[in-house]
């Protein structure tokens, strides 16, 4: 049911030319995905999706929309090669998904690697019940440091692009 809703909202985002409406629909889309994650017992991811996807990115897109026109400019006609490429890629992805292992099967490759170690040893190693926090901050600490650096770099990039004053229009006259 939620997946169906997701498809409907996704189609609406593609079809609308009103960017403000598309932003709001994207927020609904993120919130629905967050609900799906919560149904799969992935509380950490659900919280992140709700806070970042539905909350902050919507606000940031709105801040960008304050600088741009509200409506998309449309070009007449559609590109046929684009349609062909998208159809082939979609068909290939659907075909590949048939080869995916059974959902939730304990014999899946993803459950054979380091997962069991984390599940069995986290409490003995750290004494904390949230395995996600333990994996993120301790077992895979260097990855998380990389993420923090990525966020700082993103901040620096936006600063470099936007922190200058806009050029005065009358500059050329002088």
């Amino acid at each position, binding site marked *: 049911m939620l997946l169906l809703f997701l498809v409907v909202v996704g189609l609406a985002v593609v079809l609308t030319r009103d960017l*403000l409406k598309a932003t709001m629909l994207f927020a609904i889309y993120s919130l629905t995905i967050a609900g799906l994650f919560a149904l799969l017992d992935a*509380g*950490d991811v*659900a*919280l*992140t999706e709700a*806070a*970042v996807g539905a*909350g*902050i990115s919507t*606000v*940031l897109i*709105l*801040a*960008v*929309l*304050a*600088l*741009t*026109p*509200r*409506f998309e*400019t449309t070009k007449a006609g559609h590109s046929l090669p684009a349609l062909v490429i998208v159809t082939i890629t979609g068909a290939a992805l659907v075909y590949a998904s048939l080869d995916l292992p059974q959902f939730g099967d304990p014999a899946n490759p993803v459950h054979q690697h380091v997962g069991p170690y984390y599940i069995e040893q986290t409490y003995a*190693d*750290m*004494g*904390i*019940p*949230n395995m*996600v*926090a*333990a994996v*993120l*901050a*301790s077992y895979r*600490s*260097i990855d*998380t*440091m990389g*993420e*923090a*650096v990525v*966020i*700082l770099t*993103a*901040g620096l990039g*936006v*600063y470099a692009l*936007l*922190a200058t*004053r*806009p050029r*005065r*229009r009358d500059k050329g006259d002088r």
Partner: protein
Amino acid sequence: MKDNAILVVVARFLIPLMMLFGLYVQFHGEYSPGGGFQAGVLFAAGWILFVFIYGLETGLRIIPERVIYALACLGVLLYGLIGLLGSLLGGHYLDFSVLLPAPRAAQQAGIILVELGVGITVASVVMLFFLLFARRRAEAEAEGLPLVDPLDEDESRREPRP
């Protein structure tokens, strides 16, 4: 938007709760879903809501721009220094178990400190994003650049005026 009584009352009620929930998600992250990333976003969202109501200048009086820049770097620095502390005390880089005599307590301390670093960086970078975009709009308005009202329903005026 200071004139809209409903918005002001609701925001005054919500902002402390958002900040409190941010702190909860930050420091309760080992026991319940959460961690530095989500907490940073929640904290920044509280500040952004404040800016919506009271304006950017008041928001920057609470947390000046220089402080935001400094905090963004300090968060990553805190993360790296905790890691360095681990290797100075005889373990590997980012090995928390040598930080305190009891390895479990040391792991927990390391996780909390590292997540705090992530939270500080995320919160300040999100605030920075919003600050830069919002100020760009204000500056463009002050410079008299062609702008459209984002809430303008009329499609015929969707192009920026020349």
